[in-house]
């Protein structure tokens, strides 16, 4: 995308913004707050796109709400752009609410059909819109409809069903949000009140057996469903379902869903297959496995998308993984100690969680996620508040003093050299290197230090910066894994770790350059 920021006068901008329903009822004070925030909030503002230019790309984690101000945009087919667009956004239209409100990647490609002005409201600045009750409700309603519709297309259970089914299903859906772990959604033995689909996060299925032992049977993630047994079976829940962290669920009311099952018998047939699989799973889960699953859930291992695992039967304790990390990044982002599951050690290093608390806690949107799933810091937007480090439940983010940070970045820059594997950021400065550096082929390197603000803006330099594992972003390998002499270290998605146990399904989209070939 080569979009340019477009400077627009506040009055003119407000005139254009008022085309959007959500902003029509803004009071004078709310309007002032929104317009004043624009220059101060990173990522918030107007961008101009040329005709046929992509505004957002499918799979990218650009968590901004977009309001079309001028021109026209459309959802284009990512496989064949020549196909007619599936949705057109005229001035005043909103798109991107799934990313902005739920932190999920873009679900489709959106391109400008003509020269288009788009107002971007990043996730952390949504508060300026949601302060207005009408706008809040409108966004929530749009989010509900879009989220449900997008999810229904992904759920295996409803695959190949006519569009009419989803249209009839949507009025029966509502979204439930849970922020804490261990909140019961369904209680074993209680009368079923609805059918659930996990929209985001994880839930844990626990069943109390006849011998009064509780067994964790599985973790369900987005796109998986539960509650079917109480609707099609005895009417009572067969197992309890608890939240495994922050999650969002789509609840379909019991009567509406039963009615749809009557009209679309294929759904009921598939649900019966799901029920059979669940009951079979109960026999497969031993007490030991249940304990392992419970522990993994408590420690947040289940939701890890790129877990660093060390096989302690092979680790000789040489600390070469730590040294490699330090060599590459100037400061190690890995501590070779942490949680042990059997013979495997999960050291303290970023796990690139499915639901990253650090990203949600960042007030400036400096914690970002690439389409491949890596979570990284945008140091341009970072104000050094340390909220991410506080929010991380696994203590994998360290705050380091600015001089130490600068030295570490300079070290990384010195090692990686100029345009080594990925072109450097255009903002970085050129700096000459010594004779030795030139002999070693570095040329004029571009250090990866903080971008230097213009003198007029140089008002605040944070006293510390966060660092964490970024899966050696920019390099074609992960230092720790690549430098392990015994093959003890590896990166793995939690779902892959539990693949043979059939208790967590995989999403598997995180970068795995080691195996990529």
């Amino acid at each position, binding site marked *: 995308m080569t979009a340019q920021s477009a400077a627009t006068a506040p009055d003119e901008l407000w005139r254009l913004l008022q085309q959007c329903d959500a902003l029509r009822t803004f009071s004078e004070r709310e309007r002032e707050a929104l317009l004043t925030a624009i220059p101060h909030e990173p990522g918030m503002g107007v961008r101009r796109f040329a005709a046929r230019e992509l505004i957002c790309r499918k799979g990218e984690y650009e968590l901004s709400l977009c309001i079309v101000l001028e021109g026209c945009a459309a959802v284009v087919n990512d496989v064949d752009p020549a196909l007619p667009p599936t949705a057109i956004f005229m001035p005043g239209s909103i798109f991107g609410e799934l990313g902005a409100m739920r932190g999920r990647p873009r679900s489709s490609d959106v391109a400008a059909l003509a020269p288009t002005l788009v107002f971007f409201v990043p996730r952390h600045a949504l508060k300026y819109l949601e302060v207005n009750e009408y706008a809040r409700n409108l966004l929530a309603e749009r989010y509900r409809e879009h989220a449900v519709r997008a999810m229904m297309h992904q759920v295996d259970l409803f695959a190949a069903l006519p569009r009419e089914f989803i249209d009839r299903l949507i009025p029966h859906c509502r979204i439930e949000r849970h922020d804490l772990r261990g909140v019961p959604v369904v209680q074993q033995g209680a009368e079923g009140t609805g059918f659930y689909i996990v929209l985001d996060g994880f839930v844990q299925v626990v069943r109390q057996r006849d011998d009064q032992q509780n067994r964790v049977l599985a973790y369900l993630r987005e796109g998986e469903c539960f509650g079917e047994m109480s609707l099609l079976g005895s009417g009572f829940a067969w197992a309890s379902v608890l939240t495994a962290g922050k999650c969002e669920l789509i609840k379909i009311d019991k009567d509406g869903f039963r009615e749809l099952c009557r009209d679309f018998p294929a759904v009921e047939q598939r649900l019966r297959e799901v029920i059979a699989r669940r009951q079979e799973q109960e026999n497969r889960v031993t007490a*030991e*496995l249940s304990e392992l699953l419970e522990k993994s859930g408590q420690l947040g291992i289940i939701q890890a998308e790129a877990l660093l695992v060390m096989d302690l*039967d092979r680790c*000789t304790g040489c600390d070469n993984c730590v040294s490699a990390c330090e060599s590459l990044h100037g400061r190690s982002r890995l501590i070779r100690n942490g949680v042990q599951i059997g013979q495997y050690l999960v050291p303290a290093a970023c796990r690139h969680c499915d639901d990253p608390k650090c990203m949600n806690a960042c007030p400036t949107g400096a914690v970002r996620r690439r389409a491949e799933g890596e979570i990284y810091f945008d140091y341009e937007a970072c104000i050094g508040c340390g909220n991410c480090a506080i929010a991380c439940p696994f203590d994998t983010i360290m705050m380091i003093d600015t001089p130490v940070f600068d030295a570490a970045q300079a070290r990384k820059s010195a090692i990686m050299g100029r345009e080594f594997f990925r072109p450097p950021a255009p903002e970085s400065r050129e700096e000459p290197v010594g004779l030795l550096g030139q002999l070693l082929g570095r040329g004029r390197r571009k250090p990866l230090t903080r971008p230097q603000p213009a003198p007029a803006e140089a008002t605040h330099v944070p006293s510390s910066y966060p660092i964490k594992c970024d899966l050696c972003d920019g390099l074609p390998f992960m230092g720790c894994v690549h430098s392990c002499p*015994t093959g003890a270290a590896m990166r793995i998605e939690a779902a892959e770790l539990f693949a*043979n*146990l059939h208790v967590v399904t995989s999403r598997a989209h995180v970068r795995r350059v080691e195996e990529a070939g």
Partner: protein
Amino acid sequence: MEAQGALGASIDAVRRTPQGRLSVWLAGCLAALVAFYLSGFRHPPGWGSLRTGCLTLAVFALAALYRVRKRWTWWDLRTMWFGARLPARLGGWWRRADRLETWRHVHIAAGLGVMIPLWWHIQEGAGASRLEIVLLAIVGLLLVSGVSGVLIQDFLPHAMRIRPGYEVRLEDIEGALHDLYVEAEEAILGRPEAFVQTYLRDIRPLMLGSPRSAALLWATLTGSDPTTAVTDRLAHRQPETSDPAAWERLTKLVERKLRLDHNRVNLRLSRGWVSAHLVLVVLLAVLVSFHIAGALYFAGL
């Protein structure tokens, strides 16, 4: 252990590199070396001591590259830089080949393989001076330390892991020992005088002292549990007036302390042999340079 087995299988499925034991590789290399020796294969007839010497030096250098690759990131990045410019398929192969694991295998093969040109070089030589005898002794010691290192790295991690309550990092052990001592001192607060006296006589010295490293090393080699004898002895020394639960708790603390001491010895062994190996490498490098300088001075090219 069924779940652990399943986890292991999942990890093996993700790990794309061969996971055979290093000692098997070592045994294979040794067997190949012996077979080569027995076959009586000789170097080309025209090769004198200079060429065989150069070949020996080159193979030594190949073995030493492992250390360079291991500790010098610049080298690794340059290798990757080259790999990034290869066609995708070849680049992937290059990247996998550059893993430190592969380098370790090459290191072992080269370390043993150097015996072949060395053997040729000795046969070409005109008798051994004292320097050459020392040089050969160092090479022998280097070989022994290398083979020991392979065995240590192959079997010690498992031997450590199967003992309960061990620490993964050497630097965490001191803190863990301190915590144990504090816990033991707190456990006797408010106990009868006889109990305290018994603690001071029988347990505190164990908590403050360290068992002999040789004994712990022997326990590692034989696979025995170094805590059994001590805990049996403490069980017989329990004061009659005491609270059995408190004594048992103290005994458990002593047991954990001994395990940590054992763990520390094992971790030091795991890293310590590398230091010995490196010292021998440095000695060898110095002696080889003397040997080359001497040969050039007295015999010339």
